[in-house]
């Protein structure tokens, strides 16, 4: 670059800066790995439930990529998830039994579904966009219901029995293999996504969310980049879908439903959109809360969950994740 005339760049960098600390990216994945391992040891009987939480967390993170980082309004994200689940499930029923290949296939299907969804819903903004996304998910739901021969319709696609992971680890009754597989995928996804949201592309997407016209004024394009983010989001959602197909052995219409999309959005907003951390917290808190409250009072838990949501809005409008951020500020900073 040509140096800009004038005074030399003299001003020293302010001391304590968040950027440029090496290894910081690995903190969150490490924490998740440790918590995951502790959960495995401490609650070996709850692994199936934890696996379900991890699937939800992956799905909510995927949603966060488009909602939290790009500002796209969608209540139809389950299309991406369901595509992954059905792709993995159908391939498995047709004889492909390697679980990792199945999950990869789910991820690819998620990308395709993401591209198709993006094509439709990025045509509008705000409320009309929300409505387009609802229309897309309802159409996908109906299509899956109609294609009974392939998807099993409302009876669900059953008979998915994947082989052992790496040919070594069978899916067992305790859900150990499933849990470890899910945890590893979660950590890997977290590492990759932390990278993405801190990349130039991530920065650009945050810009698009805050002011798309301003991005155009610095020469950035909107549509193409949003489509790209959708594809990435589809890869993660499809991964989650594929993972659920492989670990539960059944894919139901609920996986492409509006309800599942809406539930994910609730989890995301609950945890705090715009940070991967918030997505994780939201998924864990909502799923866990639902699980335990429903176990205590299966008849009226919905009321309690509703009250929780209202309470969070009134007390912590930025989501539960902001509570953690607030706590973190109280703690002494580790590295300079």
């Amino acid at each position, binding site marked *: 670059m040509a140096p800009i005339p004038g005074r030399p760049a003299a001003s020293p960098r302010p001391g304590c800066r968040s950027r440029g600390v090496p290894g910081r990216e690995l903190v969150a994945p490490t924490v998740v790995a440790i918590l995951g391992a502790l959960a495995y040891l401490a609650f070996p009987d709850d692994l199936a439930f934890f696996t379900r939480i991890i699937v939800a967390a992956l799905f909510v993170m995927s949603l966060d990529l488009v909602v939290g980082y790009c500002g796209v309004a969608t209540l139809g994200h389950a299309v991406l998830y369901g595509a992954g689940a059905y792709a993995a499930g159908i391939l498995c029923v047709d004889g492909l039994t390697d679980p990792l290949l199945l999950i990869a296939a789910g991820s690819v299907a998620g990308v395709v579904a993401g591209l198709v969804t993006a094509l439709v819903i990025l045509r509008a903004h705000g409320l009309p966009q929300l409505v387009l996304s609802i229309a897309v998910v309802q159409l996908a739901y109906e299509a899956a219901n109609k294609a009974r021969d392939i998807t099993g319709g*409302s009876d*669900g696609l059953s008979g998915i029995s994947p082989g052992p992971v790496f040919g070594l680890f069978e899916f067992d009754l305790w859900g150990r293999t499933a849990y470890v597989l899910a945890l590893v995928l979660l950590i890997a996804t977290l590492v990759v996504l932390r990278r993405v949201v801190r990349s130039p592309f991530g920065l650009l997407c945050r810009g698009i969310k805050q002011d798309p016209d301003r991005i155009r004024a610095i020469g950035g394009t909107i549509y193409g980049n949003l489509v790209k983010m959708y594809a990435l989001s589809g890869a993660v959602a499809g991964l989650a879908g594929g993972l659920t197909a492989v670990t539960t052995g059944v894919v139901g219409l609920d*996986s492409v439903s509006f309800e599942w999309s809406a539930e994910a959005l609730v989890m995301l907003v609950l945890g705090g959109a715009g940070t991967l951390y918030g997505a994780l917290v939201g998924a864990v808190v909502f799923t866990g809360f639902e699980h335990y409250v429903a176990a205590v009072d299966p008849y009226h838990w919905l009321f309690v969950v509703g009250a929780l949501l209202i309470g969070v809005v009134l007390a912590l409008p930025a989501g539960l994740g902001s509570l953690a951020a607030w706590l973190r500020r109280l703690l002494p900073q580790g590295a300079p």
Partner: protein
Amino acid sequence: MPTDGCPAFAPAAMVSIGVRVVSCPARRKGEVVLMRSIRVLVVAAAFAVAIGGVASAETIKVGVIGPMSGPFSLYGRNFKLGIDAYVAMHGKKAGSHDVEFIYRDLDGPDPAKAKSLAQELIVKDKVQYLAGVYFTPNAMAVAPLLVQGKTPFILMNAATSAITEKSPYIVRTSFTMWQNTVPAARVARQKGYKKVAIAVSDYGPGIDAETAFRQTFEADGGTVIESIRMPVRTTDFGPVMQRIRNGGADAVFAFLPAGPPTLAFVKAFIDNGLKAAGIQLLTTGDVTPEPDLPQFGDDGIGIISTYHYSRSHASPENEAFLAKIREVGGRVEDVTMAAVGAFDGAHVIYKMIEATGGERDPEKAVAAVKGLSWISPRGPVSIDPETRHITQNVYVRSVEKQGSTYINKEILTFANQPDYGLIKAK
């Protein structure tokens, strides 16, 4: 010992029952890591010793999964009512063992959650039997766990024929769509209807009903002039009624899952003048569950339905059953087929426990109830040894007003009906 399961893990399931006493409390505490490793050792030791499983006069747990909340909570509560009534009638003990029922809520079709709940019940709560389950996909998700978990599964509702084929450990005490629909087609022919229009909800059971009715009715020489699959979420049936009316049918056969759409469907049938035009409405009992009849009011009178249980079934067994329902705090007005499915399901479970002496032996348990027959509140029933599905009477009922209440009055009986769905498949 089954050979098709995973041999490495199968014994461990029994072991877990054995060591349940050791393991239970202090689960949610923080310092558990050490405890865990100790427990792993204990399990490993017991693993080596207790291959045959441990049998003593301990509590046998049964996990019941059903819609305790949500739009279908009536049926989840019916599971509990039916089971409570059975326990009130026959005591807490099956043989020498106490039986404890553990309930889990699953409010809609969600196979992933179903599997995780079933897994939790087997692994964590150490249940010896699974039961309940309202929706087909949920049952399908549970099925693959049973062999590995050595757990028989008594299906108290989900009505798709194929479910019992998914695992040798499934026994069903409810009904199937085919079972209830074939008599509906027969009775339509007997009553002399030639041209029938079919209207069903567009999902698995609806399509089962459609196929069953069409095949039976056409085989008996009738004509299906029109077959409409209505989206499950539809509640405005005006257009459907108009279409049926324009088609010139003598009768309409309809299936919708119990819930708000059935009310709208019946109203639309009346209000669009189909009843006045002399068209007969013929349904499975799902459209006319007793708790909904007061909402239909006089409009509902004359609807003919075929079903395996009516609350007004006249038999000492049914009277005793309803008396027990009242005794355990239930309202007779809330009783549906799900309560009877659960009542008979509890009977099957008790028989299984008696036969196995409380041991976890699914083969023996299932074998013990194959061919079992008894008098249920719904009438004489038996478990078909081939399909492990319940064989029962299917009644033709007509909605009538009796005093101030509306009932499904039984007017004809098709005795000992099997699951035609599985017979067809074979």
